[in-house]
């Protein structure tokens, strides 16, 4: 047994899978539909959703997976490749077929046919990374362009359930330990890519199966980037956007630290962003729009004279969810999302400040009636190394 599951976690996961499929079944009944096909590509980017991952609570290694959830009857997972079957078998919550990638579409078609669903009564949630060849196969396979179940999956997954929160909290703990390890092991003379490699392997060592990581080390950072040859020097401000994944659930912390002692100016500007973050967290109550939260976060930063730096290219967004279930909410102008209880996302007034360079200050939060509550054991401070 090698799955990333303890004995205590197995029933939690099973309950959540059952709940998720129950939501789908209720939606099918309400819409007089026979089944949903939830597809997932193997491109596990958190800029894209994977409906099959959400309904199976399983991150496939192959390029294709699909979960068929009928209104009545048992669900079925069809996954690729065939040789990955043992990994699902040890955590299976439904019947499954593991097939070669070339056999995927034919297998889905055969299983749908075998169930004799009514014409036009099978909905599809393909996710936004669905390849063209798959997207174009559904109408032929189902007899007509299928109804979309995309919004159903997004709306369901953005409100975190027991299993999602379990994985998320494990991810948060890994991220915090990873950052602690960075503080302990980073020294002048290291190169950026060595720092990144240390962080990467330390995250894996602690249980992350993946990690979205942006970092930078400079006397004056422009933004986070991918690691380079640059040699770390005393006085460098190190930026770390650390985003481990546990069972496909990504969660992010954003941290800044100085190789040496931060200057009073660095403390002052970091405190400005931290204050903006805390104001945003207080404002982020159920029903509040993301536009309102953006305004609350930008308020103190603009008041300090940095209004022009509260937009691209000096920053990107004030926060965001991380797929693979839902990309909502995005805490940025132009989005119409509203806060809902038990949404989880990273809130981060990360941005460029002309006196200090780019600073990162961000927390994973959960929305409660009292506002956004950090999932971390302690909120980020401007760190000092050595």
């Amino acid at each position, binding site marked *: *047994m*090698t*799955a*990333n*599951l*303890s004995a205590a976690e197995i029933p939690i996961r099973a309950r959540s899978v059952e709940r998720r499929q129950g939501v789908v079944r209720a939606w099918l009944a309400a819409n007089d539909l026979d089944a949903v096909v939830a597809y997932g590509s*193997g*491109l*596990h*980017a*958190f*800029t894209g959703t994977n409906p099959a991952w959400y309904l199976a609570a399983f*991150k496939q*290694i*192959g*390029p294709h997976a699909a979960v068929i959830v009928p209104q009545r009857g048992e669900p079925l997972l069809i996954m690729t*490749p065939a*040789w*990955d*079957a*043992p*990994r699902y078998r040890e955590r299976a919550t439904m019947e499954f077929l593991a097939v*070669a*990638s070339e056999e995927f579409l034919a297998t889905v078609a055969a299983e749908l046919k075998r169930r004799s669903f009514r014409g036009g009564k099978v909905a599809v949630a393909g996710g*936004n*990374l669905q*390849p*063209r*060849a798959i*997207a174009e196969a559904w109408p032929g396979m189902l007899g007509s362009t299928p109804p979309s179940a995309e919004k159903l999956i997004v709306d369901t997954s953005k409100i975190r359930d027991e299993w999602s929160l379990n994985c998320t909290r494990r991810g948060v703990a890994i991220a915090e330990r990873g950052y602690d390890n960075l503080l302990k092991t980073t020294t002048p003379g290291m190169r950026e*890519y*060595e720092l*990144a*490699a240390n962080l*990467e*392997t330390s995250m*894996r*060592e602690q*249980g992350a*199966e*993946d*990690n*979205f*990581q*942006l970092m930078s080390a400079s006397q004056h950072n*422009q*933004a986070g*980037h*991918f*690691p*380079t*040859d640059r040699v770390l020097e005393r006085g460098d401000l190190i930026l770390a956007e650390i985003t481990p*994944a546990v069972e496909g659930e*990504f969660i992010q912390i954003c941290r800044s630290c100085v190789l040496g002692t931060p200057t009073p100016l660095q403390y002052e500007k970091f405190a400005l962003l931290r204050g903006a973050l805390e104001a945003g967290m207080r404002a982020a109550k159920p029903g509040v729009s993301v536009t309102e939260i953006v305004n609350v976060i930008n308020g103190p930063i603009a008041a300090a004279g940095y209004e022009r730096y509260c937009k*691209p*290219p*000096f920053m*990107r967004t004030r926060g965001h969810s991380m797929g693979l279930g839902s990309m909502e909410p995005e805490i940025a102008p132009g989005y119409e999302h509203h806060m809902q209880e038990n949404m989880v996302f990273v809130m981060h007034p990360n941005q*460029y400040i002309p006196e200090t360079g*780019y600073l990162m200050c961000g927390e994973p939060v959960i929305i409660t009636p009292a506002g956004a509550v950090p999932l971390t054991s302690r909120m980020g401070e401007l760190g000092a190394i050595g």
Partner: protein
Amino acid sequence: MISMEPVLKRGYSSWDRAVLPDDEFALRVDGVRHALREARLRALVVVNYSLLGVMVDYADMAYLSGLQSGGALLVPLEGEPAFVSFGGGRELAFMRALTWLPIVPGAGKAFELLPSELKARGVAGGRIGVVGISGLAPTVVARIRDTLAGFELVPFDAELRALRAVKRPRELLAMQITQGIVDAAVAAGVAAFAAGGDNRAAMLEAERAARALKARDVRVLASMGGPELRPWEGRLDGRHAPLRLWVAAQYQGYWAEAAATEPLPRENAAGKAVRAMRAAVRAGVTAGEVAAAGVAVLPSSAVDSALSYGLGGTIGLAHAEGIAIVPRSTQRLVAGSVVALRVHVGEAPHASLASTSVVVGPEGAAPLGATRLAD
């Protein structure tokens, strides 16, 4: 070999100008222009929109720009090529350090900028080649066709891939560096296991070694007690011999892979099949013939397992560049291309994993070789 796709390729990302200097890319552009003239095309537009542009299927783009990013690349017959980025923000300064090309900030309108950028290079209409469009979502294709309505779009994917298939000397050097990385990674993993570590330790040490040697993307699979290979999952447990360990990595966009079995079984079925396939490799041979050579020496009980994992294929700027070594394939290997050959047998008593990479020559295969970067 199928492996778990990471969310972000987040290892060493500097541009190694010693291995791939500006003039290397300029020579590649010359080759493309020659092919464009032969096809009577006035320019080439390469689009990388896969996975919203985050570094999957980057081969065509990287071949001409060095970038593994989403965007659109313009190569006119005359004048300066350019890269039009999808974004326009904070990442641009870093991207500019990774390419020899000027970057036009697309700021969400990369496709819409294409006509004016082509016109600025003397191409206001007529036939142009396009690469990277055929697999895109219909809405994206429609957007590109709308914005380039004044042009006749001619698919050029096969022509560009034919150019890419034959490795240039500096490409071989980049691949030898990557081979050095994966060889060292496998050796580190095997050493950890041989020293008493478990399979998890072997995977971790392999990844650590690859990243320390400047791999940008690292994929590790290992046996964990069953017949199958597994990706890293966080809580992998226990020591299970023999260890079968596979590592793939890319450096400067170029892929290589290596594998080992520890301890090596007395009957190394995988190694024997890899050697047989290697002996069959030469320019003009079909991939099916190469596969048949390997299958012929495998125990019959091991064939299905080996075929399900794949026997390898051409490799370069993509881990799978187009020709897969599969039974009955009629695709022919081209001189100058690189082939990674691999056999995995999961079931005892033949459980074993082996690989080798070779350069295809007219008379046979030559080892790709491996080199280490100077510190």
